């Protein structure tokens, strides 16, 4: 299966481990990821705060490259990119006026034929059965709090994936891997990433709420699907511990890294060494490291 792949700005720097692990898992499941030609930033939360037209034009620029190259499916692993792409597609479908304006701006007339997926959606389409077939090790002993992030399922009109308030897709993948997914109420809470550089106090509070809840429900790992959530919960964990005078030490691991480990990858192959809060103790205790 061939998919166009939009890594986005994060996956080429702060989310490089996500990129590594996604490539590994994709290969194991027989998914061909082909990077979008000459891709540019999707605009994330800054474009739509400055100009609506720009916030649609940036995704369309990338999507038209994908369409021109003959792909019908695009994988965007970062939630910020994903939601911008999906929103652009939905808006173009419904707003004829906007579509006309886009055609004014671009030489190539984008026909809204590209479907945008998050890796989770693709894994789900492929099916849990195939994931089970590929497994080499069971992750028994991991108690995983699945953190989906804010815009994977929201708003439902645009995301069109899973339950809005209580998504289950990652939980069922985690269960398939042999780990124990934990029911908790912070699955889709916001970690505050768009404020991370300007109002860090808000980010620390929101991320602390998430970490505290994860500890209270007894999770020893949080699985994430977005490089921005990961950077906040993992990179800022030391700061949060200092600010709130607590000790968490909960590793924040990408779902693709967990899948990679279960598929028999060496920890280094899926970028485990790049995590700031070391998962060595927990993964060691179940014989993975």
């Amino acid at each position: 299966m061939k998919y166009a792949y939009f890594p986005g700005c994060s996956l080429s720097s702060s989310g490089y481990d996500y990129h590594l692990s996604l490539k590994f898992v994709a290969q194991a499941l027989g998914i061909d990821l082909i990077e979008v030609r000459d891709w540019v930033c999707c605009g994330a939360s800054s474009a739509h705060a400055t100009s609506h037209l720009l916030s649609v034009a940036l995704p369309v620029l990338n999507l038209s490259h994908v369409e021109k190259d003959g792909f019908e499916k695009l994988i965007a692993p970062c939630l910020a990119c994903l939601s911008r792409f999906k929103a652009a597609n939905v808006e173009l479908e419904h707003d004829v006026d906007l579509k006309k304006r886009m055609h004014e701006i671009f030489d190539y007339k984008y026909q809204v034929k590209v479907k945008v997926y998050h890796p989770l959606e693709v894994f789900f389409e492929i099916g849990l059965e195939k994931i089970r077939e590929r497994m080499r090790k069971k992750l028994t002993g991991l108690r995983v709090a699945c953190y989906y992030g804010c815009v994977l399922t929201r708003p439902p009109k645009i995301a069109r994936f899973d339950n809005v308030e209580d998504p289950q897709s990652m939980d069922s993948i985690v269960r398939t891997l042999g780990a124990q997914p934990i029911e908790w109420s912070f699955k889709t809470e916001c970690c505050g990433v768009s404020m991370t550089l300007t109002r860090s106090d808000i980010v620390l509070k929101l991320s602390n709420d998430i970490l505290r809840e994860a500890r209270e429900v007894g999770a020893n790992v949080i699985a994430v699907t977005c490089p921005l959530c990961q950077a906040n919960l993992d990179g800022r964990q030391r700061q949060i511990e200092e600010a709130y005078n607590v000790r968490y030490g909960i590793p924040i691991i990408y779902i693709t890294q967990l899948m990679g480990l279960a598929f028999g990858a060496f920890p280094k192959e899926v970028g485990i060494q790049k995590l700031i809060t070391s998962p060595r103790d927990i993964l060691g205790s179940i014989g993975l490291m």
Partner: protein
Amino acid sequence: MSIVFSKENLQLARDLQSLTDENVMFCYQCKKCTLGCPSAYAMRMRPHELMRAIQLGLTEEIYWSGTIWICLSCETCNTRCPQDINILRVIDGLRELAISKKFEYYNPHPAIPALHRIFMAFVERFGKVYELGLALLINLRMLTPFKDIDMASPMLMKGKLKLFPHFSHGTKELRKVMAKIRELEGAR
């Protein structure tokens, strides 16, 4: 405070409707937006109050509160609004108006729109975001040059932050698009 209902007071809601296609008059103050909002605790004017203020045309109060910049764009309010108002789109409309020259009100959080400007400047320059440069410039802008150094240093050590920006080959096309949009928006 007494508010006189007049045509001028309705102007803000009307301006926003023409910009965003969202009608704030549908809001009946159920407060679901505020109850779900993760950053409402940090807002001087909470989301449902913001909606009411738009209905009443309290432009100055809206901008002075700085609420539109504290919004995290997490889309919880849109998802839960029983009247199906796209509240984030309304807030984005207010942000767009604030950046355009028509409005010059005091902004208690000037660093946040500054971040968006720097972000887009990097995108226009390189085609991608340059994370380290973005952090450095916004830290200088906020006069806290060493903020988050304890977060950045382990990330640098692990190779999670790149020292130098990447350059996208699509940048030339991107610049053309951005210039064209500026032209279109200037004409509006």
